[in-house]
């Protein structure tokens, strides 16, 4: 693990571990924002993880933010960690006024002309946002606008983990007050959000694996621990393989942030984590049996997130199609010479 990762893990763990015994999940799922946890998150300065020091940030950049997101996934933190960090980062890059507040990043589809109202489905945490930072493309350039709370209307909805995913609409004329977002494409914003989710999933996958192995070593049936049965061992071994592949894919994508092959590695990270999510959840529930199916037992906090997150910001099908299309249209002699650029040459 890099020094940066150790630093972030040590200090964020203190905060995230603490909330596990709190009622933050219940609060969040009952449709209220976990204000106390959010206040602690802000007080520790985590919201500004990715901002430069000029912007009173920690200067840890996108990579530092992604590591925090992975940890948040591990602890099932019921806060918009991916969205709030990315939203504020985009606002800073566009030179918008920066407050410690919840800004939710949104990328508009390419064609918006002619519609007087912009309608967006499943915007994460929108009901709690102080603003939506909306990125869109005009003549090949990226623009960013902060659509403030009160300027958009919404219909509440949730994903399978009870996280707010609201349908939002606002007046298209509001886009006129946008500012240029230099050197960042809308595609990049999309891929960063996908990597954020992939990082959360990598964390959740690790947590599910640890919990399941622990359970298999404790629970006894037929006179021995269920983890001693080869049938169970083989399934858990595969789960461990897929989990470590997911962590590696996310780590590699983080390492390549800012490089020309950035999106390719992000695609592979989102594909790998999304694919692993289903297998891990299925296996963990099979091993836990009935107890894992209850609300009281915490496994569901991770598995419901994995089932939701694997489709958010692009499922493995969508990212595979995009990556595959790219590979089928390469200008290089063959796939191989393109592949090897991803590890340094």
């Amino acid at each position, binding site marked *: *693990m890099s020094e940066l990762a150790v630093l972030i893990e040590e200090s964020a763990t203190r905060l995230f571990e603490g909330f596990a015994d709190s009622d933050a999940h219940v609060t969040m799922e009952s449709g209220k924002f976990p204000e106390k946890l959010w206040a602690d998150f802000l007080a520790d300065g985590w919201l500004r993880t990715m901002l430069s020091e000029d912007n009173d940030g920690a200067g840890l950049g996108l990579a530092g933010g992604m590591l925090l997101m992975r940890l948040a996934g591990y602890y099932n933190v019921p806060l918009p960690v991916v969205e709030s960090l990315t939203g504020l980062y985009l606002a800073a890059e566009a030179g918008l006024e920066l407050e410690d507040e919840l800004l939710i990043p949104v990328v508009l589809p390419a064609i918006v002309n002619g519609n007087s109202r912009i309608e967006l489905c499943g915007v994460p945490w929108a009901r709690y946002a102080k603003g939506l930072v909306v990125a869109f493309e005009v003549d090949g350039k990226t623009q960013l606008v902060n659509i403030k709370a009160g300027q958009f209307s919404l219909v509440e909805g949730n994903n399978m983990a009870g996280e707010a995913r609201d349908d939002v609409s606002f007046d298209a004329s509001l886009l006129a007050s946008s500012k240029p977002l230099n050197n960042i494409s809308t595609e990049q914003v999309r891929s960063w959000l996908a990597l954020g989710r992939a990082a959360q999933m990598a964390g959740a996958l690790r947590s599910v694996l640890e919990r399941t192995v622990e359970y298999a070593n404790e629970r006894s049936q037929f006179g021995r621990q269920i983890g001693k049965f080869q049938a169970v061992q083989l399934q858990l071994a595969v789960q*461990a393989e897929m989990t470590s592949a997911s962590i590696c*894919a996310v780590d590699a994508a983080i*390492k390549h942030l800012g490089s020309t092959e950035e999106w390719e590695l992000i695609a592979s990270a989102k*594909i790998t984590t999304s694919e692993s999510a289903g297998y891990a959840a299925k296996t963990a529930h099979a091993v836990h049996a009935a107890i894992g199916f209850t609300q009281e037992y915490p496994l569901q906090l991770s598995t419901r997130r994995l089932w939701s997150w694997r489709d958010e910001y692009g499922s493995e099908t969508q990212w595979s199609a995009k990556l595959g299309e790219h*590979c089928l249209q390469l200008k290089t002699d063959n796939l191989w010479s393109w592949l090897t650029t991803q590890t340094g040459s």
Partner: protein
Amino acid sequence: MKKLNFEPVITAEKEATLRQEVREFLAGYGAFKASDVIDSWSVCDPEFSRAIAAKGWLGMTWPTEYGGGGKSYLERYVVIEELLAAGAPVGAHWVADRQSGPLLLRFGTEEQRQAFLPKVVKGECFFAIGMSEPNSGSDLASIKTKAEKVDGGWIVNGSKIWTSWAHACHQMITLVRTAPPSDNRHAGLSQFIVDLNAEGMTVRPIVTLAGEKHFNEIFFDNVFVPDNRVVGNLNEGWSQVMAELAFERSGPERFLSSYQLLEASIKEIRQAGLSKQSSKVIGEFVARLMVLRQMSLSVANQLQEGKLPINEASVVKDLGTSFEQELPEAMRLILDIEPRSSAEDGVERMLSDAILKAPSFSLRGGTREILRGIIARGLGLR
């Protein structure tokens, strides 16, 4: 629960230059036959082995005093993955370069190293693996080939099976029982270097279902092995074999065996026209390959750092062989082509070869179930 470590690696300028060198060499060497590119590390071509030996690409990581290249594991990784991706016939020297040489460097005597390593590096001495026996496949500790002590050496009787290229190799690292079985079934095993042309040896070919003739059954009839051909410590062969297997499990040959089919399929799809389905399947397999490369490279880097990532190596092999086995299954569903064993060339032939050879991918070097057992032990379940 031991954490599996796959810290990603980005290689340096040195490796990039070397990679270009390999590509230039391959371009100059000329194209390989389509019928040889699938599972090309099972294709034996001593002439090719000597050609790359001349480039210094055998025994790359070994000390220069034995003729080795004194290079890093990452440099070796780059060279072997370029050769494998191109479908180069690396089978003749593969075992000697990958595991027999490193075994002698770890456990061999100075005399043994001097006697064999310089020849291996020149592509003049090829090694075979003498582990499995009839009735002893995955359960290696149950082997029956027996060595009895005589003056100046050992007399070996028994047989080995599934030995690739024994008829083309010179020496074989052979696991034998040197003490009777006891409660500790891993005790009493030793590794011998056996000359494949020694008196009393019979090598009989076994043809695979794909029609290949690389497998053999080997019979030992009172074969004399001198004392100076015992590797490492007598009766401690088991732990030496385990270390050997760990090194052989994580390399790029564990996911590139059917790689040329992916390149050929991409060319085919480009000609026939893209579809949403074909893009999706290609993307899915490319993503898996990207991660496998990262993981395998990470293990190479850990070996370089002097670590012994045994569990990680098992993860790479299990995920990797699943990938190379599933690739032909997926390609046949998106290519509008029937596999043809009689085709001289093209994707029809590669598809046929890949389907026919795939079953062995997850058997050699430890079956899927053995690997998953090792991983489960690492998780603390056993």
